[in-house]
């Protein structure tokens, strides 16, 4: 990997941190969440710099080194602002910071297994990326092809979205392709290290975010166990290596749920977390079309789960904060969809008669239901057991904490994930010509997108080893 590629990653991540620090609620201590913020900053930084690259394309065409200068200037501005803010804080009263991190409990066997699995996963990632540097089929026929079309296209970059390339999904949003182009701009020319580095960052940032978030909420041992299960899920690493968009979009699903949990944990004066949750939801929609489904599922779940007397009133304020982060990203997605992207291949082939024929065909429902049950129960199989059965078995061994399961953010998260499944099922039933083929090629990837968020929700409610071992444990 060249220094330029490393530099592009460092600048993106630094911009991500800067935005997180700027929006982090003032009364909430950063120290217990430092690893969470670091991993969140990776995805937020890559996402925002990809948005920046798209805006640059619209305004000035394919960028050169001037983009690097502008990004560095943005970082310098953030730096100056932070320095000023720190001086102002030092002069005024320091707010009382409550460190309510769960006490550390780290059985040695878990730490050892975690370390070994991390080392093996990194080795496999690097080795397999070196053997197949262009990624999997979809990576080179879609994501990296689009990056090439834009980067090589020069003044004619809009041709990358030609309807003549309809087989390559030119309607897919541009976070991943934009990130790849950005690495090439830093490097000065194309390099296979660009897409591979983006894949590496998203894969291991997802793992780091899950581990650090669960650790911050439920203790280190629980965080290590959650990270261990994700890293040991074969499809997660293999898919990360393949340079597809499913791991990055899964990062943003997870980030949104983590931010919702942070908001609930720190009370009502933490609108900044919701602004960030809106931002990460918008970035999910800028990564893959499934992000739009996630937005709908998350919003619907927030409404449905606001059933206590105070919830509905609070929901108004929360929605405003969420929209503040979301709307700029939605504007970018809307601009892309309306001005550049041709219609989606699944949606454009739809006619009302055809939809009616499909939704009244019980065979399609049966096929989709059967595939979902088989796919979910078998997800994450590694030759020993599936990841889902593993979670069930582990949950039976240690029990759950009913108090956690009753929390509003958990109902919101569980509702959003279930609604996502329902939404995917509806898409399969109504839009696919050959539903069996589409299920075969995409169901496992869709489940993978939701897997880190599902693990987060599960390890938040499953008892920690310490809780389960203590007398009177659930």
């Amino acid at each position, binding site marked *: 990997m060249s220094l330029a590629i490393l530099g592009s990653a460092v600048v993106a991540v630094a911009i991500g941190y800067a935005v997180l620090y700027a929006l982090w609620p003032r009364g909430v201590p950063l120290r217990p969440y430092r690893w969470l913020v670091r991993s969140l900053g990776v995805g937020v930084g890559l996402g925002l710099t990809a948005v920046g690259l798209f805006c640059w394309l619209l305004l000035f065409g394919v960028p050169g080194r001037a983009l690097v200068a502008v990004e560095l200037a943005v970082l310098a501005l953030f730096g100056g602002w932070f320095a000023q803010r720190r001086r102002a804080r030092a002069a005024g009263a320091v707010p009382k910071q409550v460190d309510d991190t769960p006490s550390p409990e780290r059985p040695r066997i878990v730490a050892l297994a975690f370390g070994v699995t991390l080392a093996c996963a990194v080795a496999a990632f690097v080795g*397999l990326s070196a053997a197949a540097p262009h990624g999997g089929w979809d990576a080179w026929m879609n994501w990296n092809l689009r990056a090439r079309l834009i980067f090589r296209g020069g003044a004619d970059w809009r041709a990358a979205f030609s309807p003549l390339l309809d087989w390559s999904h030119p309607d897919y949003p541009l976070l991943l392709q934009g990130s790849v182009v950005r690495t090439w701009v830093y490097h000065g020319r194309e390099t296979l290290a660009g897409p591979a580095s983006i894949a590496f960052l998203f894969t291991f940032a997802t793992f780091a975010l899950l581990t650090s978030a669960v650790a911050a909420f439920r203790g280190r041992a629980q965080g290590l166990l959650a990270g261990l299960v994700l890293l*040991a899920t074969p499809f997660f690493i293999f898919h990360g290596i393949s340079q597809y968009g499913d791991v990055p979009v899964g990062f943003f699903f997870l980030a949104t749920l983590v931010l919702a949990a942070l908001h609930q944990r720190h009370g009502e004066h933490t609108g900044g977390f919701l602004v960030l949750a809106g931002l990460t939801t918008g970035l999910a929609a800028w990564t893959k079309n499934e992000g739009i489904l996630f937005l709908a599922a998350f919003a619907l779940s927030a409404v449905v789960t606001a059933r206590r007397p105070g919830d509905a009133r609070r929901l108004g304020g929360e929605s405003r904060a969420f929209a503040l982060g979301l709307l700029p990203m939605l504007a970018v997605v809307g601009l892309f969809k309306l001005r550049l992207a041709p219609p989606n291949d699944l949606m454009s082939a739809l006619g009302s008669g055809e939809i009616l024929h499909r939704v009244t065909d019980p065979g399609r429902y049966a096929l989709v239901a059967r595939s979902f049950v088989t796919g979910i129960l078998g997800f994450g199989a590694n030759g020993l057991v599936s990841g889902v059965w593993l979670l069930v078995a582990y949950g039976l061994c240690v029990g759950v904490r009913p108090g956690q399961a009753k929390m509003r953010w958990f109902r919101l998260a569980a509702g959003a994930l279930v609604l996502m499944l329902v939404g995917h099922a509806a898409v399969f039933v109504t839009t696919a010509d050959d539903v069996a083929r589409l299920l075969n090629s995409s169901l496992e990837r869709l489940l993978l997108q939701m897997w880190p968020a599902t693990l987060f929700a599960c390890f938040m409610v499953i008892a920690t080893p310490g809780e389960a071992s203590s007398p009177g444990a659930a």
Partner: protein
Amino acid sequence: MRITRVGAGVVLLCLYAAVSDARWSYRAARGWADSRHEDRISRDGDRFREIRRVLPAHGVVGYISGAQPDTFTTEDFRRFLLAEYALAPLILIHDTTPDLIVGNFPPDSVPSALPERGLRLVRDFGNGVWLVRRAQP
């Protein structure tokens, strides 16, 4: 030694991880060994290096591979996609109506003549890559 339920649960997770570790280690070793040879996509891209120099920088060019659209196999489609990936930002269409056409044949079964009438071979770049032009009427 007494194994508690909690201990059994943790051991189960660690066993799951250990099986994956074995897979990662094997795959990592295979990956490193395979990375000593150029991958298929890079090799395929190299076949188009020369023809890229004579094709226009932008625009739409035709594509011919000997396979008819109704008998297009997954492998034919893959070869078409790899040609597009190599020749981007040119847009390839599986059609012989454009003035310039890229011929992409498997190197071990290159035809002796153009498989379609009304076309003229401009240059054979070797390895099954041809530049073809529509013949003037």
